[in-house]
């Protein structure tokens, strides 16, 4: 276990290094002098000087990386060219929104996927299984951005729920009811997207698990069906579910970006797209770096949990 974790941790460090190099190099993909492109033509010499210091632009490129990295380590991600605030503070105010949406959506997705997958797996090819199978297959093919358009159309036009927007968003601490109301639509959309995957993965793994000999063994002990499903079948199968959740997190964030943009909720996604459209490159770079590192860290965390659930993995 310890050896396995050490190995994974070393890999994690390697991955974060690759991410940092990648993120650093992004600004050199820009055509022309990064300073000019980032600041625009009308930039003051002071602004340029700050940027040169931030990015170490006067030094050779490999030294630039260390200057940049040193700044990042100290939490200095640069200054937003548009809002003139630090990139770090831009991210700090946007990140909790993403976190909240994702946490709510995942709770919803798990709460729906686990019982339905269990029902389906108990009677494969039963009516419920067929209906859910066809529905999930279709939903799997529908991109989240179409789903959200349909949902917005349906909910805001038919049900008359107040339109959401940057002004409608209220932080959780200020007014949690309005906050949840404004985030329910994006969370629901992401939950649907995740549900489809979790349901299918868990169902197919449960069907395989239920055919294992240890399930017959559990039956022969005379314990209840419910207990067999939860204690004996779900636990080994939850490894597949956690694996799916881990893989899902990256694309969930991306789906979240689009959804936020469509609903104008000022999370990381919305901020990112505004920054891309306004060529506020340091904000883009900061968000990309933060999100990538977060995704990798979350994957690492899932790895750890999977290890606890299934002791076979670290022994292999």
């Amino acid at each position, binding site marked *: 276990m310890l050896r396995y974790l050490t190995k994974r941790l070393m890999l994690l460090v390697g991955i974060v290094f690759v991410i940092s190099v990648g993120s650093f190099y992004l600004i050199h*993909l820009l055509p022309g002098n990064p300073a000019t492109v980032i600041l625009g033509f009308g930039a003051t010499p002071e602004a340029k000087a700050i940027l040169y210091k931030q990015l170490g632009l006067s030094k050779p490129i490999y030294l630039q990386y260390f200057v940049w990295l040193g700044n990042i380590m100290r939490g200095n991600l640069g200054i937003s060219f548009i809002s003139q605030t630090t990139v770090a503070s831009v991210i700090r105010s946007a990140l909790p929104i993403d976190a909240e949406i994702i946490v709510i959506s995942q709770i919803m997705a798990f709460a729906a996927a686990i019982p339905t997958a269990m029902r389906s797996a108990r009677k494969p090819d039963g009516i419920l299984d067929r209906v859910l199978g066809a529905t999930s297959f279709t939903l799997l093919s529908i991109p989240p951005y*179409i789903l959200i358009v349909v949902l917005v159309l349906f909910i805001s036009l038919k049900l008359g729920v107040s339109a959401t927007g940057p002004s409608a968003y209220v932080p959780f601490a200020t007014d949690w009811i309005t906050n949840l109301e404004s985030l329910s639509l994006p969370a629901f959309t992401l939950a649907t997207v995740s549900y489809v995957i979790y349901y299918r993965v868990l169902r197919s793994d449960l069907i395989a698990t239920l055919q294992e000999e240890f399930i017959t063994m559990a039956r022969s002990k005379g314990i209840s069906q419910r207990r067999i499903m939860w204690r004996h079948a779900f636990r080994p199968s939850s490894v597949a579910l956690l694996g799916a959740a881990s893989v899902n997190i990256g694309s969930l964030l991306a789906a979240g970006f689009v959804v936020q943009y469509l609903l104008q909720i000022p999370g990381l996604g919305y901020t990112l*797209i505004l920054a891309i459209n306004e060529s506020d490159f340091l904000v883009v770079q900061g968000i990309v770096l933060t999100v990538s590192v977060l995704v990798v860290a979350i994957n690492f965390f899932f790895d750890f949990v999977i290890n606890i659930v299934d002791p076979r993995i670290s022994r292999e």
Partner: protein
Amino acid sequence: MSNFSLEEAALMMVEKPEKGEPLGLFFWICVFWIGLNVFGAIFANLLPLPNPLYENFNAINIGPGLHHIFGTDDLGRDIFSRIVYGSRVSITVGIGAIVIGFGIGAPLGMLAAYRRGRFDAILTTVMYVLLAFPAIIATIAVLSFWTPRSMFKIIVVIGIASIPLVYRVIRTATLSVATKDYVIAAKVQGATDRRILMKELLPNIAPIAVSFFLIGVATVITLEGALAFLGLSVNPPTPSWGNMINEARTVLSQNVWLAFFPSLALCLFLIALNFIGDRIRSHFDVTEVKL
């Protein structure tokens, strides 16, 4: 499968296929539908379609009718024509990127699984590191900095991002075949590596490769749509399914058809692709591949 990420497409490959299911009528309907779309995309300029960029201000936001079967948009452009032309971007990006991914990832994956040893160990570790990198975020990042954007760049970026995953799927599939007795027997009989790879391994991994290819195309098309939403795909007025839906959003209350038809075209295309991919996999009863 199409929730932006090939990782999930790969995940679906773990689902146990039902043994040797028949292809069925719906499979052929899907094949026909894909064929029709590809035909339309290739021969769009030979077909009797109105110019998708022609703005007719006398016919703005009209619903489906005889002159414009899907109606017109807020600039009076023919929606049907724009959908057919828009499929060019979506299909080209989808196929182009996956061709790059397979072109590099598949041979590497097969070789690594066949040769094993150091080559495999190093390559697999490198790919593992790359896989851990959230590919969608990387795609968004590179495309936002690598300006001016073009279809070529989009294809290259998504294509490269898909290499590690194609590598992993193909490597795992090959691995499950390469350890089979008949492959070892062929080796013992002195068959050349080239012969074993082409005659023994390739036919056996073909169903999963084809399946993953199709589902991969569907995924990339979805991704292209998302990029269009984020303003990172081809620039208007060139139509693509993604940017048509995106533009239609703002006029949703005036003209629902404007969003409806491209969405429908996109969804039907994706469902058909995914269905074909899934059915091929289950029909040929591919041995379960653990990822």
